[in-house]
């Protein structure tokens, strides 16, 4: 009997000790983790916009996040946008055809909006009882001195094996500025080549019109184009070559047509959906004369 007591006491003590160690480690690291995650995210975004450590982003530029929610009650569904207004946040509810249903300003701390769980709570509070808001996606509108200069979109679609996660940048006319592959599990040497410059950069500079019926061709990538895409040759020559191939379709990766095609389709659908939605959102904002930060 005494044995059991000592065992229990010692186990409890060791558990408490262990919990203290882990708990303090968690508290110490958690802040750093969030900070680093944020920094990394920013890095990817700035890189897509063409900024880096050598070429820092100017102060006049600002990134505005737009969070899209799907609000549903028993009968129908609505689209809700959480966006930053001139002061504070605005939650705008549109019906499926784009008519404004509701427009509320939201008093919330900016740090809270960045955290998905906190944000979800806030939004569900706004839509009120009987309605349910589900986070759908987030896009970023980049402005310079109040003028829109780019959009940053991200998305996920099925590749050859599992999901491919991408982030892409377009200018205000939806011409592609860049594409970054964030995650994928394609085969090394085949589908995994989608993360290489010579594949990703083919998308650069494709206009919205081109993008609408962009296809994948199963032809070998011309040598000069490859070098220009990889940035192996002088910038001037490269620009000429890139221009020459500018209106071509995407050259599929050798041996990985399916991966190439799914990236192509994925990018197309992300941009098309965004363009459609942004148009509706802008019309609604203009109609209601809502002042927003972008």
């Amino acid at each position, binding site marked *: 009997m005494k044995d059991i007591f000592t065992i229990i006491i010692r186990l409890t003590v060791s558990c408490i000790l*262990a919990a203290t160690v*882990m708990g303090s*480690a*968690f508290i110490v690291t958690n802040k750093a983790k969030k900070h680093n995650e944020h920094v990394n995210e920013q890095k990817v975004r700035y890189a897509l916009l063409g900024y880096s450590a050598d070429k820092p982003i100017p102060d006049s530029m600002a990134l505005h996040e737009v969070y899209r929610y*799907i609000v549903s009650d028993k009968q129908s*569904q609505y*689209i809700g946008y959480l966006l930053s207004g001139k002061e504070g946040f605005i939650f705008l509810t*549109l019906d*499926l055809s*784009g008519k404004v249903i509701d427009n509320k300003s939201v008093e919330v701390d900016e740090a809270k909006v960045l955290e998905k769980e906190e944000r979800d709570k806030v939004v569900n509070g706004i839509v009120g009882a009987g309605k349910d808001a589900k986070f*759908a996606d987030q896009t970023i509108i980049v402005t310079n001195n109040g003028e829109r200069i780019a959009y940053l979109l991200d998305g996920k*679609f*099925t590749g*050859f*094996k599992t999901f491919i996660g991408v982030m892409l940048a377009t200018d205000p006319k939806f011409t592609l500025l860049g594409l970054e592959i964030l995650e994928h599990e394609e*085969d090394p040497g085949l589908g995994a080549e989608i993360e290489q410059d010579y594949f990703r950069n083919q998308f650069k500079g494709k206009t919205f019109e081109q993008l609408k019926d962009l296809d994948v061709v199963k032809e070998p990538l011309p040598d000069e184009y490859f070098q220009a895409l990889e940035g192996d040759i002088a910038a001037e020559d490269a620009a000429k070559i890139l221009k020459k191939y500018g209106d071509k379709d995407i050259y599929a990766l050798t041996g990985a047509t399916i991966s190439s095609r799914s990236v192509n*389709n994925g990018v*197309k*659908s992300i941009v098309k*959906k965004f363009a*459609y*939605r942004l148009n*509706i959102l802008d019309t609604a904002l203009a109609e209601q004369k809502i002042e927003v930060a972008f």
Partner: protein
Amino acid sequence: MMIRRHFTYWTAVLLFILAPVLLQAAELASGQKFGAENEIILTYHAPVDKTTMQDGGMYTVFEESDPDIRLEVQKVGISGDGRSVSLLFAEPLNTAKTHVVSIRDAGGAEIESLKVAKSYIGYLLSILISALLVNNFVFTKYLGLCVFFGTSKRKTTAKGMGVVFTIVMVASALMSWFFYQFILIPYGLNFLQIVVFIGLVSLTVQAVDTILRKVNPILFNSFGVYLVLVIANCVIIAVPLIMANNNYSVFETFMLAFGAGGGFLLALYLMSSVRERLELANIPTTFKGLPIAFIVAGQFAMAFLGFSGLQLF
């Protein structure tokens, strides 16, 4: 006699092979499915009215997560007997997402609304197949190698070990799922994952040990030896960790654990049958023992590359 002895094996094999047919047959009756990459097929028990159903305007189709974006129906095809309607779209569909098809009459009133998705059972089975073959825990994820090389010398040992592993894996994974969903997440204790999962694994092993000792002492005598080995093994603890990473539901967790255990059993069984054969071979001295086992495992891994990209459902 021989046939009867293997009857169960072959029924299992046959069921496994026929599973896709049976599943798809079951789906056909339910009425809607994806056809070609840009096609949705609706089937009806009675023939539909061809002239009215031909109108593309009556169908509203969208992805469930994007209700504001309507997919344009380019063409409606109706089969000769009028029982199946095929909707063709301009763009390939994202079959990973659930699509909603709502059919309205001329007045705009909704006749019916259907959800088209890849079947959930198919998805569950694909998790199973993935853990079992495509991403076999031993040959492509390199988990549990210590036990794998340690206990694959004899076929009987391998079988016993594999079965014990599967049982412990399923039990501990389900418990871990419960703890993860109802304690770790709600209270923000996700960082305690490792401690909680390893504790649950040890607990399961202890429970299996006690139960088996009481219920079936003979089985216990043949299994008991391996139970100790199970605790400190990465293949077991990996299942709850993967579950937590992917946020699996309880069924998905079960399939993952079952597939992982089955895959481990399969790998052990194949390896042990090969190693029994290798004992007769004249292997160079420097390669005797573990090195040769590694190289054989590497060859197995190369053969298992054949499963890569396999999508049965």
